[in-house]
């Protein structure tokens, strides 16, 4: 019998263990030509903000060994159009949806949560406190335990919904466990980790940073060991905390590493750019990886690497 791949993030039951990663699948619609989006664990939408946002100047991308840098800068239509077009499409198509939100300040996070708590079709909230593509390092709330907690407390205070609230954490910190503790105390139901790492590529012909935004977020398999380490550390410190793992997952074997480190489910990100059917493929491969090792379910493997 093939292993049971169903899992959960807090109160949210997931029919499949692979989700899309925020910023790597827009709002799901474009992937529909490659597979049935409703069979994914969930679509985690690209972070939405209150206002429409143009994003940063191009070039926005630089390919790097086993990865890429991006400096998109949270381009998006704003919450109003998102609800009307993107969320409506996801809801109509029975897609489990985790909405990622980003704010310029604490109040905007609160406002977004207040709006989203009232609309149908939101199965979870991912609070993006760690996007590196913002003008001020001070806006990377996840770099500071106090500001990270402020955002989560504000969101929590208006989140009158049973759907779980996840905080998306940055690995660009001295001690990610300290940040995890602070968001747990502020009331999150789980954490998503990791966001991209801040990086830079220099164009030595033009003698300037290659990206329009100068710095960008590094993603892809190049950062995978960083993600596994971060998940392992947080799961060790807070074993009951649900973790949505992401960071360069390319195969079912990679996904199994994340589960063994302590993730309950995984998001597939940058790899989708090269292989848009990857979220489905990786779920199938993960089943095969479990089966070949004699496991009956994904849930029995969560955090298993901590026992040895």
């Amino acid at each position, binding site marked *: 019998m093939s292993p049971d791949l169903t899992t959960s993030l807090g109160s949210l039951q997931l029919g499949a263990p692979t989700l899309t990663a925020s*910023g*790597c*699948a*827009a709002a799901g619609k*474009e*992937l529909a*030509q*490659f597979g049935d989006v409703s069979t994914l664990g969930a679509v985690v939408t*690209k972070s939405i903000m209150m*206002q*429409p*946002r*143009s*994003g*940063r*100047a*191009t*070039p*926005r*991308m630089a*390919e790097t*060994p*086993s*990865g*890429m840098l*991006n400096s*998109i*800068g*949270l*381009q*998006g*239509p*704003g919450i109003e159009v998102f609800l009307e077009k993107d969320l409506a499409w996801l809801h109509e198509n029975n897609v489990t949806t985790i909405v990622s939100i980003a704010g*310029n300040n604490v109040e905007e996070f609160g406002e977004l949560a207040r709006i989203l708590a009232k609309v149908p079709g939101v199965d979870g909230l991912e609070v993006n406190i760690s996007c590196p593509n*913002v*003008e001020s390092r001070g806006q990377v709330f996840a770099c500071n335990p106090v500001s990270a907690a402020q955002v989560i407390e504000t969101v929590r205070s208006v989140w009158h919904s049973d759907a779980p609230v996840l905080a998306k954490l940055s690995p660009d910190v001295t001690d990610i466990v300290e940040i995890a503790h602070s968001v747990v105390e502020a009331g999150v139901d789980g954490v998503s980790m990791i966001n991209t790492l801040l990086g830079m590529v220099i164009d030595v012909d033009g003698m300037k940073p290659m990206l*329009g935004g100068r710095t960008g977020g590094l993603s*892809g*398999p190049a950062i995978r060991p960083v993600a596994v380490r971060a998940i392992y550390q947080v799961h060790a410190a807070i074993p009951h905390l649900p973790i949505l793992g992401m960071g360069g997952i*390319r195969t079912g074997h990679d996904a199994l590493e994340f589960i063994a480190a302590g993730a309950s489910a995984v998001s597939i990100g*940058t*790899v*989708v*750019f*090269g*292989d*848009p*059917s990857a979220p489905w493929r990786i779920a199938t491969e993960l089943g095969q990886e479990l089966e070949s090792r004699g496991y009956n379910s994904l849930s029995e493997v969560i955090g298993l690497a901590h026992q040895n």
Partner: protein
Amino acid sequence: MSTAKQMKCTIRSLEPVGEYLHLILDAPEMPEVQPGHFAAVAVGGVGGGMLLRRAFSIHKSEPGETLELIFAAHGQGTQWLATQSAGDVIDVIAPLGKPFVLPRQPVACVLVAGGYGAAPMELLAQQLRARGCRVDVVLGAATQEKLFGVLSLKGVSDSLTVTTDDGTSGVRGRVTDVLAELMTRNESKAVYACGPMAMLQAVAAVAQENGAFSQCAVEESMACGIGVCMTCVLPVIGDDGVTRMVRSCVEGPVFRGDRVRWNDVDTIPQDTFGAPSPGGH
């Protein structure tokens, strides 16, 4: 949005043509293609270090049978592709993007291409001629070896003019040096262009000065080709007069030449929808 297929394609042949390579793939799942559609090819092999697809405009295709692409091996990914050979299998997504829009009336059209930007032009010329359009072609390149499609386009056009920067073939100079006169002589009403951004900008300007409609297939650096990454954006004016940063992979790669803000490519113009307030975002 066209519906694209992700396909495993066996290489039928890979042959040099001038400075470029002509790739013919067995593509049994290939849907119908319109001129201007592109294909996104995975490079580097399974487990390799290059994650992002390379985008090429489609040269030709027989639905359910073959897909043909022209490329220049000028980067790490295309150099890898150049080392593949008949029998090797590559992962391709096609057809992608919005193709050229054809005129409703049988008007005179000029097709302008720089280098291997000529790849989609044969298919386009055939379709325009089938509608009764006069088709004049201008092909430009830095030098003779960088021209593509001269002979095949001669066979499907009413006239063909070649320009090279160094004068090794045809008229010495740029495509725009001959375009205006050609348009006047033939009373051209539509210009179709594919090639480097600077050429497209110049061609779009000449078209506009001569009262013609222009359609330009842009080359923006892409990461996904399917509309999810927001990398390949450029400032384009919409029907409502508002400039937006639009994705060249799904809203393009073909745009009306008079709608692209060519001088502002690689910037976010101040009046763009959602532009940052001074200081940036």
